[in-house]
């Protein structure tokens, strides 16, 4: 089938999806990886991009929607440019994860599940990220920040803020 791009997916995303389409013994297996492609481009599950991805894969859109609703890594709504996920599960809790969340709420002036008005930061609590020996920790976009202290948290956020301002 000749495919006409609809403009929601970047060139790179399209070529990666086309690669994934034939990478597995069964095309449907690539669904999760296609969700990652859409997420990497948008930072959330853009509906029109998802529909374009489904067309490209020649699979029903509902398969993608079902999967994206099942897995927590794919938010439906836009999140901050820097999406902060704090692990709240026991090993991190024992090392102060709750106080880390309290500190971030105060520092950013937002609640858990919210985005700062400038769209720079969003904050969520998540379950175990497999970083228990380096607790407390947070994930910002796809990077882990571990063995956090109050001063390291402040310098990490200041650095990201400066990076955003300098484009």
């Amino acid at each position, binding site marked *: 089938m000749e495919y006409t791009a609809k403009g929601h997916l970047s060139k790179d995303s399209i070529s990666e999806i086309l690669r994934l389409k034939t*990478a*597995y*013994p*069964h095309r*449907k*297996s*690539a*669904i*999760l*990886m296609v*969700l*990652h492609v859409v997420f990497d481009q948008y930072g959330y599950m853009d509906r029109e991009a998802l529909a374009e991805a489904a067309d490209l894969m020649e699979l029903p859109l509902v*398969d993608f929607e*079902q*999967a994206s609703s*099942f*897995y*927590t*890594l*794919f938010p439906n709504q836009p999140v901050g440019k820097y999406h902060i996920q704090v692990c*709240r*599960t*026991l*090993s991190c*809790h*024992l*090392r*102060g*994860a*709750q*106080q*880390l969340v309290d500190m971030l709420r105060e520092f950013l002036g937002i609640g858990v599940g919210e985005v700062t008005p400038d769209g720079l930061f969003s904050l969520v609590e*998540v*379950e*175990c*990220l*497999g*970083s*228990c*020996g*380096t*607790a*407390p920790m947070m*994930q910002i976009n*796809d990077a*882990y920040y571990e063995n*956090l*202290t*109050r001063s390291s948290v402040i310098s990490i956020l200041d650095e990201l803020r400066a990076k955003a301002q300098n484009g």
Partner: protein
Amino acid sequence: MAEFEKILFKYIDYPEQDRISTYMKNGGYAAFSKAVTTMTPEEVTDVVIKSGLRGRGGAGFPAGRKWSFLPKGIDKPVYLTVNADESEPGTFKDRELMEKDPHMVIEGTLIAAYAIKCKIAFIYIRGEFTFAARQLIRAIEEARAKGFVGKNIFGKGIDIDIIVHRGGGAYICGEETALLTSLEGGMGYPRVKPPFPAVAGLYGCPTIINNVETLANLSHIINRGAEWFASIGTPKSTGSKIFCLSGHINKPGNYELPMGVPLRELLYDHGGGIRDGHNLKAVIPGGSSVPVLTADKIDVHMDFESLAEAGSMLGSAGVIVIDETMCIVRAALNLAQFYQHESCGQCTPCRQGTYWMLVILNRIEHGEGRMEDLDTLLDICDNIEGNTICPLGDAAVPSVRSTIRQFRDEYEYHITNKACLPGTIAQGFE
């Protein structure tokens, strides 16, 4: 005690161990070469059976025997799926192996694939482990360039490809049948067993699922022999184990030690003891899904049999240390929230049971508990256990049941006084 010669972590902090040139300089891929060029797949399986290697993902099933369950003489493809969906709270060993020594994982995957005659192996890695996934992908490409991955390996007509597949952030997908459903492109719902994956797994084909650490042992077993491996550890729990220390311990981290090391030695000689000189209260020895041990039980040996005798499990060897400053109700509540969030919702006992456990623990922790809540919680545990398709329901039970059984006084204090036990505090960080 004599210094233990590390097996899996021997080169873990060696500079550029993640590059194939360094890995090969340190003896890498010799085992895969030896297996393919001098052994039949059946001989490889036989060595692994004789080594006594048991699955490191939690269940402890003998790895070689699992392979031998594959049906013989059918013309369907056989698949290998590497379970790299490390998500059991308290566990962070596979991540370190994949990030720092990815070729050891790839070599193990290739040896297993050869043994079970699999042409396409999948590594299902949890979605958050982006760095580990990149490390694996690069390692596979390096191995492909050397001819260890791809077509006609070592000129022996063996074809093996490896696909890295990223998960989406769902604990349930670490359960082997949920992992397969997810890999087939759907939501990660577990399936009823039987049929077991060895008979009808991925795409209905015979499939073996092995944990990362299990596979990491294979090159060493092939190189040094089954007898050598079986001489380490205990007679029934052979080899070494990576123990993950976290929580209120002075030196958290991964420690590779022989199976059967006493928990006390692990905590005090290796982990540096309890943080800030506090007294130990409880230890969860095998990831969040196993029963807690009280402080007087730490002379137990860390192997499958000894921990079962002590009323707990080795599980994934995620050792969570809890000192006297932590309220035991809050610890149970924290884990109840985890299981409630991660229940896939397919089975009523798990979906409803984890929800009500969370509600009840929450009200006890916040001073609104009733004394009959304790028996209600134990009753919910009994009604979840054994009544679900997959082990997630069973996994949600121990943290609640074992804390009530072993710290009932503290629960009762909490309910009567509508407050945490004196001396327990909000857990802080510096």
